[in-house]
């Protein structure tokens, strides 16, 4: 109810509503931003990016929906922070990679919308806890230690669940035809044309 009223006031461009929004949500937005850029940039950059998120909201208040405010803020915060560190060389752990296809860029081959739906479907096949761990780690950029503490699990349990969930993700992608099948006869990588939106 409070959120609904706040959104209505934001849509009316009441400066007081913007202040309330910042006071309530800046720790949440700041946490996501810090998780992503904290190790590369200073605290002042975190504040600047957090402010940018609220400015973006202020400029696009028409897109605000009741009950989705946190989700909207999280999405903007993640996108802005990822764009900011794009220039920095980010090394990705091999464990965070899943083997899914040939040398072609999957993103080029599959429509973004389909990819979003696919991810949702694949995540639905996981248990609620495994799904939460993946979202916390890969979307919110929380560390294994932070996740373990929040979910009252040991770090090794989190890692094990993540590894299992990644494998599940990979299996689902293969089952839906987004990964290759290796033909032993020709020793050639081929896409398995199974499921919707399969690439050939």
């Amino acid at each position: 109810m409070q959120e609904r009223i706040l959104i209505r006031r934001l849509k009316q461009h009441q400066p007081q509503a913007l202040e309330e929004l910042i006071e309530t949500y800046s720790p949440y937005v700041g946490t996501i931003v810090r998780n992503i850029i904290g190790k590369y940039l200073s605290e002042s950059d975190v504040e600047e990016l957090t402010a940018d998120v609220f400015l973006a909201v202020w400029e696009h208040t028409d897109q605000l929906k009741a009950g989705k405010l946190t989700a909207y803020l999280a999405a903007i915060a993640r996108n802005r922070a990822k764009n900011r560190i794009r220039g920095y060389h980010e090394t990705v752990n091999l464990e965070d990679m899943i083997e899914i296809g040939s040398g072609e860029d999957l993103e080029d081959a599959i429509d973004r919308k389909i990819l979003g739906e696919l991810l949702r479907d694949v995540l639905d096949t996981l248990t609620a806890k495994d799904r939460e761990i993946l979202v916390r780690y890969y979307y919110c950029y929380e560390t294994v230690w932070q996740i373990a503490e929040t979910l009252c699990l040991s770090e090794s349990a989190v890692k094990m669940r993540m590894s299992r969930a990644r494998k599940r993700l990979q299996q689902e992608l293969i089952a839906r035809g987004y990964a290759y099948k290796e033909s032993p006869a020709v020793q050639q990588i081929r896409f398995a044309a199974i499921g919707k939106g399969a690439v050939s």
Partner: protein
Amino acid sequence: MKWNCYDLFDHYNTEKNGVPALKEQPIRTDAVLERVQAQTAAHSQPHKRSRIRMPALTAPTRTYSLPCWECTATTARRC
């Protein structure tokens, strides 16, 4: 091909699937607010009108060249 899971999650739809509640870290809210206010003030400031300097309007000190009603000469003064 190996694909980075972080990039895969670029396609995660927060509005449909939701986001977890995070253990929030403190941030200087006043500093964020100050930055936002400075920006919104800059955006909402009305454009300054370019002031065109106009000569002051004063009552005209014109002399009318009307014909004299007595001799019909075109002069400002009475003949």
